[in-house]
């Protein structure tokens, strides 16, 4: 049964993603790379070579992401005592692997050796290229805000965390009145304030590896965006538009991908905090004067503020999950545009037959 839950979660996740993609719930402003391939001869050949490279590296990135997810599940099963650390850190770790593939698989900017003579004239535009020119308007702002909030949350949770029986920082301690003093007649004379702890809580045990992966993910994404901007432009004058389309494609893939995985990374952390806060809200207090017979239990009450806070955190987790799925759908749409999937919508926009 325990193994069934992640499978159901993954299937549900995939179904929602397919619905988002099939129902065109995402804005279709993508320009297909294949539609940007103008020109003929060597220019056309070079454009086709670049599109093929993009397809291969995107496919490799998707395969690596899937393998990363499977590896997280296998590792979780293999090291069950890790308390789900591999599953909690999976989104950030998967993104690090994906962006590594994108960095290590460069896009060629020169035609094949021998197809261009050394005496060919070379032109260059005079507009300085910046990272923000290629990709969505929120391309840098959204991931940076999500990253900052995530790191701050992890630090705060880490400071508040306490150790469990194995000495791992994955619990949170709190004051509770769950014990009582009884007299010789088993009558409660007073409640005792004690320290309880609940978990799993995203303390340093979960937070530190996640934070390291997030920082690594941010640095690698910035490097990839920088490389996308700095890559020399293509030689042919008929490839100017295509060159910009390739950079925009990369910018969208990187920005939406990093944002999506940041949102998905926040989900397990928020749900852990929400569950811990809900557990903290429970008060099992005895009434002074109550006789504690065999089987008698304390009256359980809930702190309404803590309950509201835990539900808010849970709701925020659901919201992050939805935004993450939508951004993931956005990312997949961009990836598919390299395979000609965007041609239909682009042609429809232009009013020409597909």
């Amino acid at each position: 049964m325990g193994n069934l839950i992640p499978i159901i979660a993954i299937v549900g996740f995939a179904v929602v993603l397919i619905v988002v993609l099939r129902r065109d719930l995402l804005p279709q402003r993508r320009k297909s790379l294949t539609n940007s391939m103008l020109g003929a001869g060597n220019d056309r050949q070079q454009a086709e070579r670049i599109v093929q490279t993009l397809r291969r590296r995107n496919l490799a990135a998707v395969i690596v992401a899937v393998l990363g997810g499977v590896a997280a599940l296998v590792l979780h099963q293999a090291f069950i005592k890790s308390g789900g650390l591999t599953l909690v850190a999976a989104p950030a770790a998967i993104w690090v692997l994906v962006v590594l593939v994108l960095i290590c698989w460069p896009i060629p900017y020169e035609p094949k050796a021998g197809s261009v003579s050394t005496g060919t004239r070379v032109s260059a535009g005079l507009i300085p290229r910046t990272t923000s020119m290629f990709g969505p308007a929120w391309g840098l702002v959204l991931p940076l805000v999500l990253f900052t909030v995530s790191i701050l949350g992890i630090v705060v949770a880490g400071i508040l965390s306490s150790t469990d029986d194995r000495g791992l920082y994955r619990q949170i301690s709190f004051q509770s009145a769950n014990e009582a003093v009884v007299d010789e007649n088993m009558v409660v004379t007073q409640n005792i304030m004690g320290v309880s702890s609940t978990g799993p809580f995203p303390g340093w045990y979960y937070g530190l590896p996640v934070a390291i992966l997030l920082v690594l993910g941010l640095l690698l994404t910035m490097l990839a965006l920088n490389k996308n901007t700095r890559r020399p432009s293509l030689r042919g004058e008929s490839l100017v538009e295509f060159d910009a389309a390739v950079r925009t494609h990369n910018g969208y893939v990187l920005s939406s991908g990093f944002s999506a995985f940041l949102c998905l990374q926040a989900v397990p952390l928020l749900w852990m905090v929400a569950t811990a806060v809900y557990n903290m809200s429970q008060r099992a207090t005895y009434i002074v004067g109550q006789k504690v017979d065999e089987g008698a239990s304390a009256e359980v009450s809930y702190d309404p503020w803590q309950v509201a806070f835990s539900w808010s955190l849970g709701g925020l987790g659901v919201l992050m999950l939805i935004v993450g799925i939508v951004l993931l759908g956005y990312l997949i749409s961009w990836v598919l545009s390299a395979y000609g999937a965007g041609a239909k919508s682009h042609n429809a926009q232009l009013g020409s037959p597909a």
Partner: protein
Amino acid sequence: MITIDPANLIGPSEQIRAQLAAMIRSGELAADAKLPPVRQLAGDLRVAAGTVAKAYKELEGAGLVRTGRANGTRVNPGQLLKTELLADVRLLAQRARADGLGLEELQKMVETAWNSSLPGVPKAL
């Protein structure tokens, strides 16, 4: 857009400098316009970064551009050529087009005229 012709006897650095200077003088590059970073332009033109850096340095020496650490290289204001020469050059280009001449042919003609330095040659054009 600037172009480097490897067949040209003039070195790439001088070609870059001359074209940028002409753009600044003609107003094609406005005052305070930012030039691309050295590495970007060098990569796009397939030349060494030092080649572009040398061209930028010469433009800076001539007072056409300024380089700040954070601001990059920007065009200095007041560099627009305020002589009738600019209008003459535009007229020359228009006439060359009307006569069916290509840019390279016109450039060669100007180059020949420049080298011979004979008075009255521009009128003959």
